[in-house]
């Protein structure tokens, strides 16, 4: 699915340069659930931006879904982002003036899908995430968890090869965060490749593989033998709530 080798990224801000990534090699197979952790400034977001084709590496190669993308132009990047990658952001990044439905339609719009089909698929996606009665709400009329679910529906709309989520639970309380994690786990069970960045170990424990970054380098790559199950945790929380 993803194969990067000796990928590096150096930001130059006027007088001095910041090496954000210092040569990272990595492979992610289809169907994996990977969490990237590390201290603030260790290069996690930089890495995600490169994987998501939002940015270009300073050096190294990147093979996405069997295709070397190192030498593609902006238009091809845009098209690959559209078809292969679904982004989920910490800040949701929904368009505030569009309804949930329209927001979900957006990525399909750029895929050239006809309005009728877009509408149908957006409704399906939102229904799947339990938002069937929030289709015509604007982001400011929805809770954080609901907004993030809209964002996930949008990321999934074009049936991407991979979901890239940078701190998707960062702006949510722990229970809502768990709800989002259970969605990712559910998606992953059905075969979607998920890569998420988090600095919360607890969140990372829901993945099946944890990559640890420090100072622009990959310092650990561990399998999670017994991932936490967000659905069970939520169940337990609810029972505790009911007892109290």
């Amino acid at each position, binding site marked *: 699915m993803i194969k990067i080798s000796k990928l590096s990224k150096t930001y130059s801000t006027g007088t001095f340069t910041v090496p954000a990534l210092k040569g990272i090699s990595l492979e992610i197979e289809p169907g994996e659930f990977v969490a990237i952790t590390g201290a603030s400034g260790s290069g996690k977001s930089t890495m995600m931006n490169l994987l998501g084709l939002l940015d270009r590496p300073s050096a190294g190669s990147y093979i996405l879904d069997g295709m070397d993308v190192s030498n593609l132009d902006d238009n091809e990047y845009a098209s690959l982002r559209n078809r292969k990658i679904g982004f989920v952001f910490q800040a949701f990044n929904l368009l505030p003036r569009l309804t949930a439905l329209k927001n979900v339609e957006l*990525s399909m719009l750029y895929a050239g899908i006809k309005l009728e089909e877009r509408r149908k698929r957006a409704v399906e996606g939102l229904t799947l995430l339990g938002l069937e009665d929030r289709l015509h709400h604007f982001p400011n009329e929805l809770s954080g968890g609901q907004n993030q679910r809209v964002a996930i529906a949008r990321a999934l709309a074009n049936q991407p090869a991979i979901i890239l989520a940078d701190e998707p639970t960062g702006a949510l309380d722990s229970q809502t965060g768990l709800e989002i994690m259970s969605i990712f786990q559910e998606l992953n069970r059905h075969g979607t490749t998920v890569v998420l960045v988090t600095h919360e170990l607890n969140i990372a424990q829901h993945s099946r593989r944890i990559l640890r970054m420090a100072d622009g380098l990959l310092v650990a790559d561990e399998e999670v033998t017994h991932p936490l199950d967000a659905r069970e945790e939520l169940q337990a929380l609810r029972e505790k709530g009911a007892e109290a």
Partner: protein
Amino acid sequence: MNIGELVLVAIESIKSNKLRSFLTTLGIVIGIAAVIAVVGIGQGGRAMLMTEMEKFGTNLFGLWVNYRDGESFRIDDLSINDISVIKENVPQVKYLAPVTYNQMPLRGSKGQKTVQVIGTTAEYAQIRNLEMAWGRFIRDDDAAVGRRIIVLDEKTAVKLFGPGNPVGKRVMIMSNSAVVVGVIKSDSSMLGFNSQQVAYMPWSFLCRLTDWKVIHELQGSAESKEEVETAMNLAKKILERRHNAPNHYYAYSMEQEMQSANKVTGIMTLVIGCIAGISLLVGGIGVMNIMLVSVTERTREIGIRMALGARRKDILIQFIIESIVLCLLGGFIGIIIGYGGALLVAKLAKWPPLVSVWTVVLAVGFSMAVGLFFGIYPANKASKMDPIEALRRD
């Protein structure tokens, strides 16, 4: 992504911020409204002027004495015999009549009034397309028999005799009297040519009254519009020869007058239209200004769209279309307001509002062009954004 979809996106975005959209396009609204109103009023006024002038007959021409420095008035500059000579020798001349002006106090049974009395002959009625309200105009035999008659216009008739048919009644002119034989319909012209109150009497009668055989002007009409030029020039030549006075006469035609009036009103419309056009330009700069602000404000939106797969071209076109749609919207509102303005002025001035299809097409095209031109720079700026930078902005 096809253009239709992008138009929808643009409309969506315009709708989502109605107040700002309206304020953005206000300059275009005002500019287009001004252009439409000015051109509409101008064209209406011109059409009005032309129909008014046509009422006099487009075949009309006149011959005057052209007094130059040091020349003094001579009583025999135009003589009654000139008329028959001209008519015999110039087949293009259909009618020709003498015109002598004199201010005279007229008194009737109900009142009195000093009016412009025109001494002329029967053909004058044909030359000036005069219509009778009552009775008849001067006839050829009136002069021959020396009848003491007068033809009034409606306003004068009312002034002298009150409403009703005054034919057969007597008008006192100083110590003389004349019988009313007819009343001319007063023209409702707004141009003022005919609004002056006038009365007509046979030229010979007027001469007898004033004891002065003078002709101020010859007025005639040609067989057709095309022959006016020839008719008046030949007539002028004959006058020059008969009076042995080269360059002593001046000829004018309604056709010439109309052409110059047409030119003047056309130039005026153009000049005022240009000024209105400048306001459109200012409006366009306003649109660009707000579009630039809007692009900056919507940086994050641009970043999100890019992350979702919008190509730079999609962003570019989206913003250009937004600008065009905004300006078109302003254009349409402007057309309605401008047309309303032209209609109002036309109604007050009693002339036809004339907003031609071409003016509207031009206005629509122009507002589109303004939208395109002033949208390109902001749109280009939007499309050049770096997706990560844009996403990071809040």
